[in-house]
């Protein structure tokens, strides 16, 4: 359960003996804004690289080694209409080490130093650290083009979403990056520290009281909680927009975007999970069976469902010359579901697979913590049993109904020229 430490600052502790590690995440949450995506990505990298106490990467790395190979990283994530800058730390529980007690205190102290005491002089980030991270982020943005699967997914996102903040890659853009100065970033940082909603999530073999004490000692002031809608909603279009791009690649990529206005844990959510599983979300889905197994047209063909953005996307890697054939098969699969052409076996097996993967995710400390954060954001915690019952209750007609809400909106095709 979430404990409010201060206004706009919460703590959720899950004591468990299952894992050999303790994991702490401090999430800074703000409304998604296209103007701050790049800044937040760069900020994550700058804060991770150095702080006043650990002014070089080497100092940070040595500190983590001293804590028995502790892991520390700051990640960014877009979830529906919010942006999460997540400072994640994990370390081995002392009972498995010849170590003295106190790793939890040390962990909180370390996080505090990284977040509150960055390497700064004259109200700007340390020039050398800043420039290095800025340059490296620029390089990363450049190399995305070399990862064709990712490149195709980002291109699809760009043509599908109307809202700038949704179309932009979550790591930002080069145009914005160029303009950021150490001073501007520092000033942005102080805003985040002052205004972002703070959610701390801890799991491991830990004492709840102790965690609360340590969280309370973090100098976050009172602030407002995010109170807008988490879900991004986009009106369905009647026309399909399409983009074809030519590159010298061996394998073409055909990616499709659909609107599915069904949101996380709302009425049809569980039916939407089953729908996506049958369509292309699971190994035995219609896409896999028909595009790959029956027609041998692809090595991968799958779909994914973003329940915070009401969005389903299909990704395939194919021979460019087979593009039309593949697209026809994909459309046919969706039509079939809309017409109720689902076998009992498909329906039941999909439910079983979803149940199994839901339970399996509980065995991963990372997934556990992510789920806790989502629960906090949606202010809704569901028990394992509750989740299973809700999924079980989905009937055949519910799935057909959800399928009928799914409309093709955008097509991105990366054409190959080389054979």
């Amino acid at each position: 359960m979430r404990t409010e430490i201060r206004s706009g600052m919460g703590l959720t502790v899950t004591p468990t003996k299952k894992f050999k590690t303790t994991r702490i995440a401090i999430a800074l949450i703000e409304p998604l804004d296209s103007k701050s995506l790049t800044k937040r990505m760069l900020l994550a990298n700058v804060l991770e690289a150095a702080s006043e106490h650990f002014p070089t990467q080497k100092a940070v790395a040595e500190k983590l080694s001293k804590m028995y190979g502790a892991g520390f990283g700051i990640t960014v994530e877009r979830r529906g209409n919010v942006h999460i800058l997540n400072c994640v730390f994990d370390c081995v529980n002392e009972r498995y080490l010849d170590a003295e007690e106190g790793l939890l205190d040390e962990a909180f102290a370390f996080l505090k130093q990284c977040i509150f005491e960055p390497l700064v002089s004259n109200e700007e980030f340390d020039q050398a650290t800043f420039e290095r991270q800025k340059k490296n982020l620029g390089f990363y943005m450049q190399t995305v083009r070399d990862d064709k699967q990712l490149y195709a997914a980002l291109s699809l996102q760009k043509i599908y979403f109307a809202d700038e903040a949704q179309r932009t890659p979550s790591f930002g853009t080069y145009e914005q990056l160029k303009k950021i100065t150490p001073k501007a970033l520092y000033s942005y940082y102080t805003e985040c520290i002052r205004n972002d909603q703070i959610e701390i999530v801890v799991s491991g073999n830990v004492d709840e009281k102790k965690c609360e004490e340590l969280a309370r000692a973090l100098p976050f002031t009172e602030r407002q909680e995010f109170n807008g809608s988490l879900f991004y909603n986009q009106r369905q279009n009647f026309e399909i927009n399409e983009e074809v791009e030519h590159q010298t690649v061996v394998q073409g990529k055909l990616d499709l975007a659909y609107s599915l206005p069904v949101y996380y844990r709302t009425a049809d959510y569980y039916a939407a999970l089953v729908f996506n599983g049958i369509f292309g979300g699971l190994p035995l889905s219609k896409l896999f069976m028909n595009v790959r197994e029956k027609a041998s047209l692809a090595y991968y063909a799958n779909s994914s469902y973003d329940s915070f953005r009401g969005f389903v996307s299909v990704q395939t890697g194919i021979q460019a010359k087979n593009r039309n054939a593949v697209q026809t098969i994909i459309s046919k699969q969706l039509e079939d579901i809309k017409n109720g052409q689902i076998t009992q076996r498909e329906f039941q097996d999909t439910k079983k697979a979803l149940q199994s993967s839901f339970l399996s995710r509980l065995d991963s400390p990372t997934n556990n913590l992510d789920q806790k954060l989502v629960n906090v954001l949606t202010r809704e915690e569901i028990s394992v049993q509750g989740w299973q019952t809700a999924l079980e209750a989905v009937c055949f007609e519910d799935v057909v109904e959800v399928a009928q809400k799914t409309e093709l909106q955008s097509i991105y095709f990366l054409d190959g020229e080389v054979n």
Partner: protein
Amino acid sequence: MEIVQYPQFDEKLYKEKLDNGLEVNVLPKSGYHKTYGILTTDYGSLDNKFVPLHKEKMETVPDGVAHFLEHKLFEKEDHDAFDLFGHYGADANAFTSFTNTSYLFSTASFPQKSLEILLDFVQRPYFNAKSVEKEKGIIGQEIKMYEDDIDWRFYFGMLKNLYPDHPLSVDIAGTIDSIAKITVQNLYDCYWTFYHPQNMNLFVTGAVDPEETLDLIKENQSKKSFSPANEIKRASLDNDESGQDIIPYRMLELDTQRPKAAVGVKGLDQVPDGREGLVYKLRIDMLLWLLFSDTSTNYVRLYNEGVIDDSFDFMFQLERGFHYVSVSSDTNDPQRFCHEIIAVLEKAEQLLKGQYTQFNLAKKELIGRQIHSMNSLETIANQYSGHLFNGATIFDKVAIIQDMTLEEILTTCKDFIRSEAVSVYQILPKEGN
């Protein structure tokens, strides 16, 4: 049944070698929902020349057969094993490496049923010409996908430098031309030669009861008959130990965004057998950590001078019959990168002599990392070493790291790093990019 206790980690490993030769390991994990099982044969893409079972002469099969067989084993006369796993809520997968082929499932629904499906589909082959032809299309796409994958090409570029004219320089999946030649007979020849239980091991971990699981496996095995175990005769791989065949430098121009450079070191020394092999491996891991991790002065200097960035990576790969190191990065100055890395390698001993503080810190780091990975069923089972290190598990590693001395690292370093074993590979963006 033997029980190996690891009190430091609250873990117990149950192991038994069955009458038919199958090596079984079961590691229960309390509190877990999931069960993960992996069945591995000591056979991979390198094993393309051997004496097929019941024959007398060496035969060469087309490149990519091991991987092709892995794909085809799922398909049966009247069903697909993949489907059957799905029917019981299990995820299934398989992978082929240079020296192993593994089949696995993961489920939180019907672990016992899944385990039976795993054993049955791997132990009852069925191949036919029509489905073999069809698979060529799918694997063809897989090969093409990797051709667009610059990291994959980069990886193989170094292997081709270190092991020219050796099966290691050929993609695990083979080539479009080589897989076109694969026949049903090839698949059966490889299957009967390498899939005998004697050549395989099974590792099950997660929400399982060890006794019940072992009983179920024995019961399943007792219903099947296998030919008596034969000694497998593989062609010895031509591995020039003088290092003379190594290509010292190659580069490739591609439609890519940034230059990539790698320095490789081929292992020309002899890796000890059994558990000592694992000790050797962990020493080299430690050596690389000391030389190149972000706690090293070398890393920090190169990072700060902009020669390397966050893509910098180092790895040591050791499998049956080969071992090598590769240190790589995206870099704007590939020449300087290679020059700097080679310089570090050449004076490694000198750099590390007397560095006890760094060494003890690295020990802490590497021990912590091992314990971290004990949370993951996949890591526990996939790291089982089988024949390679005589059945060592992830739980054996911490004690080995604990006992290491800096002097041992330096000795191993001297044996391993030889100037004639070094090679450089680069991928550069095409002009006009």
